[in-house]
């Protein structure tokens, strides 16, 4: 892979000049084409003739990716208070603090999105008495992968509504950690807790 430094240059097609011109690599702020955000201070090739950005070297892709994914809104849902209490109790059970709730949810969302068989079973939890109640608390989950995992899980479970999906995941956690006390998920959660503590 060729790594470019600020000040180096190469020939590149310039759309404004309608020709191949020398482009010098500089740090610039470059917007996304859909108008939703800017990648700040990223290495790009700039046309020496007209000063427009003409080249994005591959080494800048991770910075672009990070900014692109940061635009995503968090996954949120309004939930009955007792479901948030279940999450808090689950963190207590594994020896963590309530700060661990988002990590625990993201772990389950990702794990279920990769296990079609397990994912298809969680819709049944929506029939439980615990799935109902006034939605007085909010759960917000941020992360680069969360949006894709949630969309994939919606397709697997056929649960279209984000809040219903979150409810079924929480009740799955309830069954694994608090009711049946399954050793494997509890051990996995303890390992993750140790990594993020």
């Amino acid at each position, binding site marked *: *892979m*060729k790594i470019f430094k600020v000040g180096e240059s*190469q020939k*590149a*097609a310039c*759309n*404004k000049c309608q020709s191949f011109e020398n482009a010098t690599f500089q740090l610039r702020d*470059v*917007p*996304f*084409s*859909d108008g939703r955000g800017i*990648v700040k201070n990223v290495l*790009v*090739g700039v046309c020496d003739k007209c000063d*427009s*950005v*003409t*080249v*994005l*070297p*591959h080494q800048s*892709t*991770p910075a*672009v*990716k990070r900014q*692109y994914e940061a635009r995503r809104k968090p996954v949120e849902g309004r939930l009955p208070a007792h479901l948030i209490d279940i999450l808090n109790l689950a963190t207590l059970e594994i020896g963590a603090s309530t700060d661990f709730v988002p990590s625990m949810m993201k772990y389950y969302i990702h794990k279920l999105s990769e296990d079609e068989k397990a994912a298809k079973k969680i819709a049944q939890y929506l029939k439980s008495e615990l799935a109902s109640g006034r939605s007085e608390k909010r759960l917000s989950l941020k992360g680069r992968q969360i949006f894709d995992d949630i969309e994939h899980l919606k397709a697997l479970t056929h649960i279209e509504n984000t809040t219903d999906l979150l409810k079924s995941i929480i009740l799955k956690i309830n069954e694994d950690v608090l009711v049946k006390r399954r050793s494997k998920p509890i051990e996995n959660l303890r390992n993750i807790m140790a990594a993020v503590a």
Partner: protein
Amino acid sequence: MGFKDAKRQVIECLEKGLVSHEVRDDIDVKNLLAIGRVTLEAGLVYQVVLCRAEQRIH
């Protein structure tokens, strides 16, 4: 340069990471390689497995 030669060169560039993306004042969000949603390896698979003779290589 014929299609086969062009394809060979694209594959070589993808293998070695010798890739840059054209920018027209902004970063095209439809360019999945540029925004990192598709890896070079996936792009390589596309070229090797799926690229057909009637498609142009840019």
